[in-house]
């Protein structure tokens, strides 16, 4: 898989890497048990500090997104297997808290927030469909 890091984005590179791996796992681009590149290979591919990749992998492992087999490498975890229901819902709660804070600061109405969540979760991306129809 091809990763991109953008120095000069103002976001730490290990965070950029975590975002991309998380997204690739969530969208199925990286299926469960798929092997991730070794720290050294990825460091050379991206010309970044190996410690940065170690950190991204460690944090993702803590989150249950990936797992490491000693001497064999790093692999994509199965979505549900690594976390208990309590941990799962706890983490969802944290994400909702972040969403709530952001929405509060943006002064969104409850209706706007719910509509945005519904749209994302149910995959009803209306704007895209509309754009597509216009072009056709």
């Amino acid at each position, binding site marked *: 898989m091809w990763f991109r890091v953008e120095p000069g984005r103002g976001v*730490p*590179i290990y965070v950029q890497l975590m975002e991309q791996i998380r997204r690739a796992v969530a969208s199925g681009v990286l299926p469960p048990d798929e092997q991730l590149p070794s*720290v050294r290979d990825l460091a050379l591919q991206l*010309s970044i500090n190996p410690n940065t990749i170690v950190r991204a992998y460690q944090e993702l492992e803590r989150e249950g997104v990936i797992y490491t087999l000693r001497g064999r490498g790093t692999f994509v975890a199965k979505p549900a297997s690594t976390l208990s229901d309590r941990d799962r819902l706890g983490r969802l709660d944290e994400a909702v808290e972040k969403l709530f804070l952001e929405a509060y600061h943006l002064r969104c109405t409850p209706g706007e927030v719910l509509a945005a969540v519904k749209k994302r979760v149910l995959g009803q991306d209306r704007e895209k469909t509309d754009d597509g129809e216009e072009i056709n």
Partner: protein
Amino acid sequence: MTVNDPALLTQKLSKVFRRRTVLEGLDLEVPRGCVYALLGPNGAGKTTTIKLILNLLRPTSGTIRVLGLDGVAQSQSVRRRVGYQAETQRFYKRASVGELMRFCRSLHSRWNQERADRYCGMFELPANARVGELSKGKLTLLALVLAVGHEPDLLILDEPATGLDPLRRRQVLNLMVEEMAGEGRTIFISSHQLQDVERIADRVGFLVGGRLVLSSSLDQLLAREKKVRVIFPGPPPEDLPEWPGVRRVEREESGLLLNLSGHLDEVLGRLAGSGAAAFEVLDQTLEDIFVEYAGGSVDLREEGR
């Protein structure tokens, strides 16, 4: 010496040339196995710092420990375990790359010729090329190869990317990756290429006017330094510049721009509670942060004095 000693430790290090203070009270600590980038405007004292570490200059006061050794009294031992690429190269121009390599090899008891050859291949430095005919960029690359040949524990690179095109700069970064990935070497670089530094550095230090004004983990620095754009319909709180984390308050067209160092959540909470109509948190790049810290005035509160 133990493995726990930092790769580099200076305490109250100062250097005065004639009456000009070039370096003042430098306290620098570089842990083992990391890449530390020393950043600073021209004339800030970066090269002087490096020369002091290598005992090419004598400190006016203060102490230097390199890999647990005394930088002055044990400088011979230090030099054996340190690789150094200088900012400008003074090689014997009529020698060939291969001859120069053999000479450097003869100076060291340990030498990894296989690795040196591999780097020469990557940088396109043929053994029969005359040193005097190499471009400035190629000379820097040659100096890099010669600096790593004896597998030093600490690699000191003074502006390694100067005058190199993007491809060569990526190759130089990959040389650093290779050097640290295997044996966990420590790398100390001075550089102006801030995007390269963002790729490779664990820690950064800002040297301004001979003083170290900041030394931090790069990830923490990017997470900590933010700008917040805020609009107040009424008068802003008078004590805003005194709020925790607020380094500086700038006026903008319709609002204020806060330069924050940490305390983001707290400041956002207080803004929400003090009538701010809208605000926006802006990430900063290493370059933004560097300019902020190196750009002269740092604190409005002190400016009027």
